[in-house]
């Protein structure tokens, strides 16, 4: 429970600091949060995580978070399509509404669930 709350708080703080841009960062395997730069040319509507950080944390990466400031906290249909590497978990949200999402190849769509304790196992 502590780790879940810690991560949600980190996401919230980072999202507020980068507002109105989308923020993004890496969740490590020991459930710490590494703030990364959003290098997207349109950072209000999209994110591209700084690849240098990705390389630096490649072996420690558990998941990737990005924020949806002032918007629906659920993933966008583009978010699902952008998941190229299935080695990581993907998280999205705003304030306390954080979701884990993944692309389902057989259904050809993006599924999501509330980010809760079960996601950290």
């Amino acid at each position, binding site marked *: 429970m502590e780790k879940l709350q810690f991560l949600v708080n980190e996401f919230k703080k980072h999202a507020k600091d980068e507002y109105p841009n989308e923020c993004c960062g890496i969740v490590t395997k020991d459930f710490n949060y590494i703030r990364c730069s959003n290098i997207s040319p349109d950072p209000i509507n999209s994110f591209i995580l700084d690849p240098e950080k990705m390389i630096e944390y490649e072996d420690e990466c558990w998941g990737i978070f990005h924020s949806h400031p002032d*918007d*629906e906290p*659920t*993933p*966008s*249909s583009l*978010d*699902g399509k952008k998941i190229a590497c299935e080695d990581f978990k993907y998280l999205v949200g705003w304030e306390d509404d954080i*979701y884990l*999402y993944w692309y389902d190849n057989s*259904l*050809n*769509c*993006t*599924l*999501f*669930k509330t980010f809760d304790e079960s996601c950290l196992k």
Partner: protein
Amino acid sequence: MPNWITNYLDIPYRHLGNNLEKGIDCFNLCAAVIKNQTGEDLQYKTSDFCNIVEEDWYTKTHDPLFKAFDNPNYGMLKIEDNPQPFDIILMSIGSTNITNHCALFLGNGKMLQTMIDHVSWITPYGRWYKRYTTGIYRWKNFNF
């Protein structure tokens, strides 16, 4: 029609959306009108029922939306006939046979709805929509 209805017309459609200006989907629209006009909180939003992001989610799943409506602990009562204002009409529209749409009954044979490629609008609840109705539900605190 009540005067307040104009606040809920011409809103863009957005699957999973819950914003009366930027975009809203069919269930979140029903819940927002009920909340704003009666103070009753249905406690759910579309993302609690539907875990697929894409607008054509109903072609990708056999899971019916609104499963909670048939859970007696939730608070929706199934009505046999004669809808009243603020009743929610569930429908199965299009080629799928799952319940994939809902509208808010307004009285006088009219309902408020929104769907893909539309903005929210008022339409008669007539023969066409009745044919696709899978259930009419009333929130527990609306005891007329």
